[in-house]
């Protein structure tokens, strides 16, 4: 199990530490996603775990052994970079077999293992290709195979998918999850993309300005963001406070009323006999539904959705009043009791 205790990392030229007093635990066999905006220190944390950045304070230990004096190459933590960092002078097979050759594994066994790994990442027969001839997604797959080859105790992934286009990212996120679970790999995974974190990780830690502000299972974090900013980062469009939050929850018959409520864009839905009423500010048709911006009486400006009009029907016109229902499964109570700046 990886234990990160009170870790801080400082850069010479910066006033604030890049990573400040971070505590994290990662049990064997689990995948932990560290989620945060760019510049929050998450990649620096990853590099510190790999032993590539010196700690200003705190400790990183694995299975109870402090790693302070263990250099990177003896930690057994493979780091996969955002852009793969394949060795351009070696073939795909040369890259994947790199860690094995370092250990002087016989060539025949290296070749066999490289073949297995290329099958695993979906690139059978790619061994003789040069890295320069691969697409971005293929390079990341090769980098993943290279990282897995040495059977590292811990796999560190630094935004492995963010250099890829959207379709490739979704497909590879799914594959990545399968590969990690099947191999039983313990992985620490850094990303700024919440979808990626949901798709790949078991547990999640939210990081902001060098600090971990919330951690837990993906579900727990997602269902109860720690504050309004965390909620917005997790993809909630609006955070309501006070009376507005109360009105929305009570209209759906909620038993317990939270002081702050985060709404996804689809939390309010146009429906006949809905208890709330909103005036349409704008409407935009998408392939699946109509997205509305509404001014809801006693709540304020929020997003809502309406079903696509039947053939010959019309989208609600600007300024018209529409009835609304609330889908509580698309909302989340925000834990933070402090009221921070009303709804937005």
């Amino acid at each position: 199990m990886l234990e990160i205790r009170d870790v801080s990392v400082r850069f010479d030229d910066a006033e604030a530490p890049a990573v400040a007093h971070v505590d994290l635990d990662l049990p064997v066999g689990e995948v932990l996603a560290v989620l945060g905006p760019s510049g929050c220190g998450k990649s620096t944390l990853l590099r510190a775990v790999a032993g590539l950045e010196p700690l200003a304070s705190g400790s990183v230990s694995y299975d109870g052994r402090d790693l302070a004096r263990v250099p990177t190459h003896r930690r057994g933590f493979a780091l996969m970079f955002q852009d793969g960092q394949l060795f351009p002078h070696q073939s795909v097979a040369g890259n994947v077999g790199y860690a094995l050759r370092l250990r002087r594994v016989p060539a025949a066994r290296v070749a066999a293992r490289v073949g297995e790994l290329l099958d695993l990442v979906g690139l059978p027969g790619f061994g003789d290709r040069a890295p320069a001839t691969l697409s971005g997604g293929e390079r990341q797959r090769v980098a993943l195979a290279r990282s897995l080859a040495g059977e590292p105790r811990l796999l560190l992934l630094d935004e492995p998918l963010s250099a890829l286009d959207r379709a490739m990212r979704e497909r590879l996120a799914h594959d990545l999850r399968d590969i990690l679970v099947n191999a039983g790999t313990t992985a620490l995974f850094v990303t700024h993309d919440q979808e990626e974190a949901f798709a790949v990780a078991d547990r999640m830690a939210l990081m902001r300005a060098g600090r971990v502000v919330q951690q837990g299972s993906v579900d727990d974090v997602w269902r109860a963001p720690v504050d309004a900013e965390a909620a917005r980062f997790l993809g909630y469009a609006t955070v309501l406070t006070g009376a507005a939050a109360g009105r929305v929850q009570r209209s759906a018959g909620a038993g317990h009323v939270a002081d702050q409520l985060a709404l996804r864009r689809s939390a309010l839905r146009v429906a006949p006999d809905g208890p709330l009423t909103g005036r349409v500010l704008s409407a935009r048709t998408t392939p699946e539904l109509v997205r509305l911006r509404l001014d809801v009486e006693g709540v304020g400006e929020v997003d809502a959705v309406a079903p696509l009009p039947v053939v010959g029907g019309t989208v609600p016109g600007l300024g018209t009043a529409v009835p609304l229902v609330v889908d509580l499964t698309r909302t989340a109570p925000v834990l933070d009791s402090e009221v921070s700046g009303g709804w937005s």
Partner: protein
Amino acid sequence: MRGGWRQGLAVAALAALPVAVFAVFFLLPLGGMVGRGFVADGRLDVGGVLSVLGRSRVHQVLWFTIWSAGAATLVTVLLGLPLAFVLHRLSFPGRGLLRAFVLMPFVLPTVVVGVAFRTLLASSGPLGALRLDGTPVAIVAAMVFFNLAVVARTVGALWEGLDRRREEAAATLGATPLQVFRTVTLPALVPGIVAAASVVFLFCATSFGIVLTLGGLRYGTVETEIYLLTTQLLDLRAAAALSVLQLVVVTVLLYVAQRTRARREQALDRSTGRLSARRPTTRDLPVLAITATAFVLLLAPLLSLVVRSLRENGAWTLVHYRALATDGGGALLVPATTALANSWRVAVDATLFALVLGLLVTLVVSRRPRSRSGRRAVATLDAVFLLPLGVSAVTIGFGFLVTLDRPPLDLRSSAVLVPIAQALVALPLVVRTLSPVLRSVDPRQRQAAASLGASPWRVLLTVDLPVMWRPVLAATGFAFAVSLGEFGATSFLARPDRPTLPVVVYELISRPGQSNFGMALAASVVLGVLTVVVMALVERLRLGSVGTF
């Protein structure tokens, strides 16, 4: 189509002047030399050339040239690699100063380097006990001294541009620091090392001033042998044969260097280049120790030169410097101060000439024509203008003498020969400094400017010129320094009554007598300081590409 045709015409017009100058002042003299070697009594005579190449003295000279240049290249690379690492991958206070210092020997006039080593190794010098004066070891050491900057700069620039994360990836896969170097860093550096080594070998194999001042008559390279055959033995045919031989070898080497350089530029394009130097740690101690040794090698001859120039009969004195204003008791035709003034005037002319030619050549060779034949023409031109880098200055000077001596071009006694020859020697450096910068301008910037309504002239003014003025200044300094120190061609061409300072230094050390040697030291210091000041001004411009070939 019409646009392409007009563009081609414009490029041809730009190229016309440099090509014409190059034809008259480089290819013609070169051709004249080849002719002298192969044509005897109006008939092609290959046998005569072969018989020259069969002489045992020639074998001796050839063998010495190859092994001394080879040994010097090897030592330069071995010392230069740690230096490149320390100066480009570690960050510590004073690094900028050290980088400038490493560059200094490279721009020092070769006669100054030779004289400095003699003061260090002479029996009365600080290292006199080693009895290295006049030995091949001294020659090799001076070659290393001279060329360390080439390796440190060329490899260092490449090293600095390597993405550190590639090495980190290897470390997280379990590679020890040594394994990381061997399997990841070194393969990435190989093109740079090969390019630097081939340039160093070239410089060593064609070095003239160093060998002449340190080797005397006992040890000669092809280059000094050509000089001796021409000026002392008057065996022009043997000299021509050796020149041709040298030209062939140099062309092959340049071709190899060019090929690896092209590959390196490709390689650099691909790296995203996150530049990061780290602080030194205790693990770097061995590398730091080698670097310190290299700095001692660089510093010792210079210190020794300066100290010796200030001493006479065991006391500190400025007498040698005062003597520079005299004719040295009849040793010289004109005082050294007059020679300094000559050097300065010649350098101004040569620099101007090299810059005009260099700018025109750069504008042409940094084009990327659409047609295949256009591209091939540009590539050929690029390679041809690199030739003076390797063709020995002695060959150029000698060629001038044998071809420009009759109408319509009888320039033997003209004062313009020296600046022209020096400009040709400086030309490759000017082009090497300017063309990477111009090539690095994204063509889409020009297209963007044109699409916003800028005329071709306006594009040149607003897109190209802003990035060019600094390299142009740097190239000016480079050409000036080269011209100030040029010895090979000048020693042939300078008229006895109008010598440059390097020629005077050589004359002084070839004559016996303590006071002559003292004057040579003082003149060397003045020449060295002048060159270094010019280069320091250039270095202030902080131009990364200066000194990389």
